Every structure is written in structure tokens, then in C-alpha cells.
């Protein structure tokens, strides 16, 4: 029988169906779930790699258009969005911390804060999109903005909408994962003995924040 790493005593009160029949101990299963989640995060990284690759190629081919167009983005809203997402990443980390130290109420509060920050992020994004639609700074053949006439500007906005769009979809997915976890936390499911569920949700949200940390300078600043 594999060596029991964590003390046997630590598992009282853990619901029966949590340990798969084929896992010898809870420690091994948590480790498996973490490894599984990180593999899933690797696929998300490579999903965005496709878009970053497009951005790199077109920035290389149309440097003037990319610089001109990125100056016409609303930098203050972009920075605000970055602060919102970083703080949401902080609150989700605190939520996991509270769950692990048996304070489910505080954990639930942090999760609600995180979801509100996410909604705030989407709201700010919606304001920016509305502005783009008004000044016709739209991707591909819909591009007719007067501000930037350099060829290749349409390509910048194609990349802008593809990247922020896909990131937005991931923010929405992250919010639904967080609200599922919020519901589980309110049920008192997570404790210092079993907290892998909230950890995995937190990992996904941190990845969404990681992607934005790279998107923000590439699109708004340079």
C-alpha cells in the first residue's frame, strides 16, 4: 500500500464520495487534481499564444499603424481595468486563504468582491467598445475611423477585438466558476482539510488576470 503521507487523523468528517475509489489517499487525489488543473491552464496559455503570435506578426509588419492606433485607445480606462483585475486576483487569493483557515464567511465575502470586480471589468470594457463603435474603429472591413488612416490600422483593431473578446469570454467563464464556488463555500464545503475545489477556481481566475497583465501593455501602452 503506498505510504500514507498525511496523517490519517486529518480526514475525519470528509464526505465519503470525495475520495475516488481508485485513489489511495486524499493527498494523492488533491495532487492529481492540481496537476490536472495546471495542464488545463497550459492549454489556455497556448490558446492565447495563437493570438499573441498574430499580434507579434502584424505589429512587426505594421509598426506605424499599431503605434498610431494604440494611442487612440482610452488608456485611463485600460489602466483602471488592470487595477480592477489585479485587485480581484488579490481578493480571490484571500478567499482561498480564508477557506483554508476555516473562515467560510470571510471566504464567501471575498468571492462576492471578486465577482463584483469582474462585473466592473466587463462594464468598463463595454464602455470602451461603445466608444470604438461610435468612432467606427472596428475590425477588418468595417474599419472607417478618420483618426488613423495608415494601412494596417484595420489589422490592429482586428487583433484588439479578437484578443479582448476572447479574454472577455474567459472573464465570463471565470465569473461562472467563481459563483459555483461561492455557492459551495456557502454550503460550508471547504475547510482546512478539503479546499482543492476553491483552489482550482482561484487558479483559473489568476490565469485570466495573468493574460490581462500581458494584454494591457501590448494593446494600450506601446
Amino acid at each position, binding site marked *: 500500500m503506498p505510504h500514507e503521507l498525511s496523517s490519517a487523523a486529518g480526514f475525519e468528517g470528509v464526505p465519503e464520495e470525495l475520495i475516488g*475509489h481508485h485513489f489511495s489517499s486524499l493527498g494523492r487525489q488533491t495532487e492529481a487534481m492540481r496537476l490536472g488543473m495546471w495542464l488545463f491552464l497550459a492549454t489556455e496559455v497556448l490558446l492565447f499564444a495563437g493570438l499573441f503570435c*498574430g499580434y507579434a506578426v502584424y505589429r512587426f509588419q505594421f509598426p506605424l499603424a499599431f503605434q498610431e492606433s494604440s494611442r487612440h485607445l482610452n488608456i485611463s480606462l485600460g489602466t483602471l481595468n488592470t487595477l480592477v483585475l489585479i485587485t480581484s486576483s488579490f481578493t480571490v487569493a484571500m478567499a482561498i486563504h480564508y477557506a483554508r483557515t476555516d473562515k467560510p464567511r470571510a471566504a464567501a465575502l471575498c468571492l462576492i468582491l471578486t465577482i463584483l470586480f469582474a462585473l466592473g471589468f466587463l462594464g468598463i470594457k463595454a464602455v470602451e467598445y461603445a466608444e470604438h463603435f461610435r468612432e467606427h474603429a472596428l475590425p477588418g472591413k468595417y474599419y472607417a475611423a478618420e483618426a488613423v488612416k495608415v494601412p494596417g490600422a484595420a489589422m490592429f483593431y482586428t487583433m484588439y*477585438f479578437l484578443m479582448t473578446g476572447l479574454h472577455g469570454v474567459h472573464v465570463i467563464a471565470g465569473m461562472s466558476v467563481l459563483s459555483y464556488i461561492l455557492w459551495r463555500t456557502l454550503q460550508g464545503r471547504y475547510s482546512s482539510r478539503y479546499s482543492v475545489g476553491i483552489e482550482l477556481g482561484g487558479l483559473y481566475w489568476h490565469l485570466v488576470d495573468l493574460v490581462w497583465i500581458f494584454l494591457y501593455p501590448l494593446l494600450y501602452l506601446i
Partner: protein
Amino acid sequence: MRLSESDSSALAGAQRHLSYLEDGTTVMSWLNTRDHKRIGVMFLAAVLFFFFIGGVFALALRMKLLQPGPFLMDALSYNRLFTLHGVVMIFLFLIPAIPSAFGNFVLPLMIGARDVAFPRLNLASFYIYLAGAAIAIFGMVHGGADTGWTFYTPYSSTTPTQVLPILLGAFVVGFSSILTGLNFIVTVHTLRAPGLSWMRLPLFVWGIYATSIIQILATPVLGITLLIVAVERVAGFGMFDPARGGDPVLFQHMFWFYSHPAVYIMILPGMGVISETVCAYSRKNAFGYKAIALSSLGIAFVGFFTWGHHMFVSGQSTFNAGAFGILSMIVGIFTAVKVFNWVGILYRGAIAFRTPFAYICGFLYFLVFGGMTGVALATTSLDIHWHDTYFVIAHFHFIMVGASMMAFLAGLHYWFPKMFGKTYPEGWGLVAASLIILGFNATFIPQFLLGNFGMPRRYYQYPEQFQALNVASTAGATLLGFGLLIILIYLFIALRWGPRCEANPWGSKGFEWMTDSPPTTHNFDEIPTITQMPHDYRTHEAPGVIGAA
């Protein structure tokens, strides 16, 4: 109280002697199963079904090519046919075949685990595969795409045919591939039996592990690429639109970043099966075990560096062509090392010539022939004449239909007693194997010559001088199709009325033969402790359960 080991075995005591096939025979018990063995069998059935459909498309194409002019069908349906032949054969048969069907069934048995790491995820990946296949079939029924399985833009984003369902079908099937890969990596990392170190893992597990790495790291890039083309078709703006400065060659970069490692997804599990069966039938330990295992990982990683050799003449820069050319040579080495080591296994072995062994010979011949033409293609200057001609088609069919399908058939026959507890008729097996090997050569060697002659691929009508070779190729194709039909028939008969066989008919010392066949739902009564390498035939002692506690 925590579920201790002894309790679980008492729990399983009731169904101790019920094999996984008899343990619940309602349809729901199959559709809602968590058992990796049942999911493996369901994948096998789905995969064989799509192999049959792809095969029918292939024969239809070959029939049309009997005549240089219009014959049997118009240009558009011919283009749709070869697109669907490509999509079905690659996304719905070759990529899931060995990893999802045999990998699901045999991997947990080989590492002494009761099941894969995430059984529910395993079932979800089967249903995602079916959903993707359903979307693709919906597209096929509504006419199907005429873009070729490579979906090159700007043709794929401007053609009026039904490209969107096929794109989304491939996108969804990609998820199933990712989830299977994820499941296997975590299983191998966390669920190995005690005493089973990395250097004692069976070579099939190495093959599946390397394949899963590729599935995890390559499939998302295909996902995003197909998504962007779908957005371009639906919303009208796209990253690859040449009128806006978009770069069609960028699509090819991102597509082949997935599709070249995908061809290694198709061949690596096949190499794993061959490593197992060569050891089993020559009753010999794996000669150069470390070399074969590490070259599987080598192929998995270096395979990501070589996608540019699909684009030597596509407007890619000369510098890049050189870089990709050298790296393609390096990835070719790992296959060469494996072939030499497989032949080394036969030295001083006790070779029993059974049907799977006939498939092994076919596999080695086709892998060497196909692999060397691949190396010849990678010498950039020869590729200029050969690219997008029938030479390339013959090259990848030698590897896909030749090597990978031969390995699939070898695995199917080798594990048929393990999966279903029945034996297949040996005589018919050898007849079918020789028919297939003969038919295959007659189909694809003329295509090599067509390629040399200069016939481009995907040609509905071709200049007259190519007709003779095309007729020869079609004749070979019918023979190949006939050979495969014989297999289908005698395997089905063996499944229904075949004689039951004993637990280890081949006397193989692979770890998966430690349990009885077909195995019980919980695989092992006691998780075995592994104390030696697989396929160790120095002692004669009956290959029963090794080191059971």
C-alpha cells in the same frame, strides 16, 4: 471511516468474478459508465465506424480518378469528398484511435491502477467526441466543406460551402483530445503502482504519455486557428484577410504548428503498440528500452520544432526553410533509432509468427519506406518538385495508413483476447494481413511515381499521361478495402461466436496480462507491487500475477 483497502476489496468481493462486460448489461450501464475499459470499448466502436466511413470516401475518390475527364461526379462533390475523407480520417479516426480506444483500456491495467485519474472527465471526453462528430456529420449531410482538411485561408474564409460545421466539429473533437491527454498524463504521474518507477513503465505507456504531451500543447493552437477562421466567415473580419494586410502564410504557420505534432499524435501510440507486440511475440525483453522510451519523448518535443517543412514553397522565407529543414532531420533520427532497436529485439528471441507479427512486419516496412521519403522531402530542394503532388500523398499515407493503421490492427488482434475474452481465427488473420499489405503497396507505390511524374494533389481532372498509374492505384485500393472488410467480418464473428480463450493466450509478460481477461471491473483485487521490467522472459514461471501482496 476512510475507505481502507481491505474494505474496498470486500465491497468488490460480491462482483469478484464478474468481468467488466457482465457487470451491468443495461444500455444505461454502458452510457453512464465510469469504467475506463467500457469507455475504451465505446471509443473503439465509434472510431471503427468513422474509419469505415472514411474508407468509403477514399474508395469513391479512387473510382473517380480512373478517368482523366469528368466521371461519376462533378468537381464540387469531388472536392467535398476529399475534404471529408481527410477530416473524418484524421480528426475522427487516426487521432482518437489508439490513445482513446486502446490507451483508455490498457493504460490503467499496465500501471496497476484501478482507473484513470478522472473517470467522469474520461466519459465527458467520449461525449464531447460524439458531439464534435455529430456537428461534423451535420456539416457533411448539408454538403460539407470543399476546402481540404487543411482549411487554407483565404479560400476557406470565402468559399460558400458548409465550412462552419466542419470547423466547429474539428474544434470540439479537439477538446476531447485535450481531455484524454490530460487524463493520461495525470494518471501516469499519480496512479502508478508501488514499485513502478519511470524506467519500468511499459513502452506503450511511454508512447501514450508522449502523445498526451502533444495533445495538451498542440491542440489549443488548432482551436484558436479554426475559431479565427470561423469568426472571419461569420463576422466578416479576420486575422488572415489579405485585403486588410492579413497574411495567409500566418494561418499556415499556426495550422501546421498543430498539424505536424498531430501526425506524431497519430504515429507515437502506434510505435508504443509495436514495442509491446514485438516483445510479446519474440518473447524477448525490450532491446534498448531507454533508447525507445526517450526517443518517444524526443519525438514529442522536437516534433514541435519542425512544422515549417510543410511550407517550403508557400512563400516562407529561405532562412526559415533551412531552420525547419535541419530540425526535421533531427526528428527523423528518433524514428530511425526505434526501428533499429525493434529489429534488435528479435535477436536471440523466440519468435512466434502470428497475425499481429505479420502486421509488425508491415509496420516496419511502411515506417522505413514512409519515413525515408519524409526525410527526402525535408531536404528542401527535392520538396520544391514534390510539394503538393501525389508524392506527398503517398508519403503520409505510408505513415498513416501503412504504419499507424498496421499498429492499430496489431493492437486490435493482440488485445482482442484481453478485451473480449475471445480469440480470432489465426488463418483468416494471416490472409487478411497479407491482402492488406499487398493491396497497400499496389495503391500507394504508383502514387509515389505519380508524384515524381508531377501530378498535383486534389485534382478532379488530370492530364492524360497520369491515367495508367491512377488506374493501378485504384486497383490496389479495392484490394486494400477488401482486405479490411475480411478483418471486420471475422472479428465480428469471433466476437459473437468465437471460442473463449484463457487469460493469457500469448504467454506475454506485459503488465496488462497480469489480470484475467476480460478483467473485472476493479481490474485488480489487490494493487500489485511491481518488482521488475515488463517483458522479462528469463524465467519460465507462468506469467501469473507478479508480486501480489
